[in-house]
């Protein structure tokens, strides 16, 4: 039964990927202006316009271009960066880990802050702690990440003559320095997600805490910790896990700005630069990786549903 559920979810993910790949492929071609002319003017990527179109494969029918691109992507060939001439897949190999580390740190902080504060807020509903937590969540949702990031870099520099290092530290050079450089951007990137998770955890927990079986648990004389954490929390987490899946996509898009502000050579910064340089194979390649990651994460979320609630087998 469980295996059938997994297979079904897996099959549903395939059309999502196909549609996403069509969008990723098409959007690049909808950007206004003759990109080929621009690339020739700016960077002389080829001898002439026709050679440029041939190099990009733009002189072939669009469906041929699409199937060729997808075919190569399936075997891990995402083309070659027009800017650096290196294979996109090879570039991504060094950058994806950086973005994943940043994204993981952000999600870690989002859960670390969002779930406990949501629990406290629900359990202490309409108290000062609840109001502070809810106010904080509203702030966290409304303050743009790039603004927080900028303040976090500039204000300590001005008032304390300190700012995060602009030098990217490799894991092999200094393991602690490598991990440490993700803490501040990860925390800031995770704040928005923490706010969403906090609010949802609170709402869901409040609903569960009003269920009959919880009242029964209280009436049996169980302690608060047991009632909330053991009997209520797990049942309130399914929507939270759903949101977490969405948050991962948002965090991945947020890395574009945070990697730029904090000088981290990740996928987001690579994408930002590729867009600036109109390096279309890179833009397509990164977007495909991001889309695949998001679809993959949501697949995992579906599997987690089944774990959290064995009744779920849709």
């Amino acid at each position, binding site marked *: 039964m469980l295996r059938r559920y997994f297979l079904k979810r897996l099959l549903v993910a395939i059309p999502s990927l196909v549609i996403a790949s069509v969008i990723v492929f098409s959007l690049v071609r909808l*950007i*206004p*202006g*003759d*990109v080929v*002319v*621009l690339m020739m*003017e*700016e*960077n*002389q*990527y*080829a*001898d*002439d316009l026709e050679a440029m179109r041939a190099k990009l494969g733009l002189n072939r029918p669009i469906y041929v271009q699409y199937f060729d691109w997808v075919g190569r992507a399936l075997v891990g060939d995402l083309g070659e960066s027009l*800017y*650096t*001439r*290196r294979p996109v897949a090879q*570039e991504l190999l060094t950058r994806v880990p950086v973005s994943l580390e940043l994204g993981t740190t952000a999600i870690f902080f989002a859960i670390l802050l969002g779930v406990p504060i949501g629990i406290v807020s629900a359990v202490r509903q309409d108290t000062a702690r609840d109001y502070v937590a809810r106010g904080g969540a509203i702030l966290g949702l409304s303050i743009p990440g790039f603004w927080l990031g*900028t303040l976090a*870099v*500039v204000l*300590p*520099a*001005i008032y304390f*003559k*300190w*700012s*995060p*290092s*602009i*030098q*990217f530290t490799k894991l092999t050079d200094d393991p602690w320095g490598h991990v440490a450089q993700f803490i501040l951007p990860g925390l800031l990137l995770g704040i928005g997600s923490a706010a969403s998770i906090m609010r949802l955890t609170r709402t869901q927990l409040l609903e569960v805490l009003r269920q009959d079986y919880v009242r029964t648990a209280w009436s049996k004389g169980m302690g608060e910790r047991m009632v909330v954490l053991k009997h209520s929390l797990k049942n309130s987490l399914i929507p939270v896990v759903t949101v977490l899946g969405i948050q991962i996509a948002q965090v991945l898009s947020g890395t574009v700005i945070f990697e*730029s*502000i*904090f*000088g981290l*050579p990740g996928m987001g*910064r*690579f994408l*930002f*630069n590729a867009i600036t*340089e*109109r390096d279309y194979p890179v833009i397509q390649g990164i977007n495909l990786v991001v889309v695949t990651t998001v679809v993959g994460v949501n697949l995992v979320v579906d599997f987690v549903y089944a774990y959290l609630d064995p009744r779920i087998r849709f």
Partner: protein
Amino acid sequence: MSQRQGGHGPEVSRRDLLKAGGTALAAAAAGPYVVGVRRAGAATPKPGGEFRFRGYTPPHFDPHLTASYTTMINLSFTHSRLLKHKAGPDVKPGTFEIVGDLAESWTHSDDKTYVFKLRKGVKWHKKPPVDGRELTAEDVKYTFDRFTSIKGNANHHMMATLAGTEVVDKYTVKFTLKEPDAFFLDFLANPMALCIVAREAVEKFGDLKKPEAVIGTGPWMLEGHESKVRTTFIRNPDYFIKGLPYIQRIEGIDFDDPAARLAAFVTGQIDAGPEFPGMMIRRQDWKIIKEKRPKLRYVEFPSNVMTHAGMRTDKPPFGDVRVRRALSMAIDRKAILQATAEGVGVMNPPIPAALIALAIPYDQMGDGLKWDTYNPQEAKRLLAEAGQGGGFSTTLEYATYGSQELIDAVQMAVKFWKDIGVEVKVVEKPYAAYFATSYQGKQDGLMMGPQFPALDPWNFMAQYLPDEPKNQSHVKDPVLADMILNTRRITDDKKRQQQIYAIQKHIADQAYYVRFPSGVYIAALDPALENFAPNLGYDYGGRMIAAWWNK
């Protein structure tokens, strides 16, 4: 008042400028102003140390296959040219005295022949496949043959007048031109694409795009390159000027965010102003930076980035000189400068004021000055005289370049034109579309944007030649074209300057473009860096050769 460095010629402080208002702004066009720079301290240079600046990841490293300044900045550390621009604390920013680099001396026997004697004993970097062999005249010939013949060289126009090169002997090379070109030496010295490259590197790697192919004869060798992270250079122990360079290692750290750059500079993580071009800082950051790093060395000088509005002079109503003059007179340039650059800047003659050797002093533009002076009433009268008394409507195409200052300038210009009855509909284009169309003069009415910050006057004058793609105003003025082409044939510096002045007067009088003022750069450096002075242009390495750390 800060101390001032001696020997810099005309010195006007920013405060002086602000006090004096527009007059001083115009006067400043005559030369850069230097504030707060002190003369080098200890007399004996100390070798060693590391210099960290905001670096750039280039598209690739082949100088003959890109026009990107990011490539040229990196290669300025590793490669030499035949000639170069003099650098050092005694050089006024905005001046470009030509001195020998690989060339020990040069002569021109006639208007079309230049003979260069090369330094002896110049060694290529000790990297395979060149492995430190001696540079000869063959290398120079190979470089220029490649430069002129390779397909896809965006800078090909720089050697448009070169007919060929010839090896006279191991250390002598002869250049023959198709026609006299008085700007030929300027192009050779320009830190843009004309560095000497090694044949073996091209043959081994196919081209010079890869970091491994960065093999020059310059003061530093490429040590490492991590795309979008850092590029590092290590001192070349065999550099042909014994004892130089002093600084052991150069690190160009590539980071995009301006706030992060400000923070890095305030906290001393980099040693020079992190803004493009040439170790600058943003004016809006200046107050904070001065408070936090009060001992900084800094130099202020006008930018050679000039924004202008081009118009279809081949179509009505812009074909009428009275309409063009009215459009120019409608613009309150001081107000734009105030709004976009805190009032600190210079008014531009047709060649940007920053290029002080050949830009005509703004107040000597003759009748052209009148059309640059804000006078909306007179502008309306001119429009009426041209039969446009009821005003007219047109479009203005532009790209933001990610610059709020440019957006503000465009909006203010539109407002000023509306004041005289000209309704301008702004068409904002993505940079790609703008560059491929409006920047090439393919706009319907007006276009507006910054122009390429060249160091030579030719680039600016060429915008008035009928067949030039950057002739955004579609100027077809045979008299002017003759005057411009003739400048190439005038080898006497004084006479050439007079001719270029005359050209600028003519252009200003015809108001082919509406020119806008330029801001004033602030170049800022760690106070312990001795024997260094900033300038316009991408020759970061050339200016660093004799610098050293006094700490």
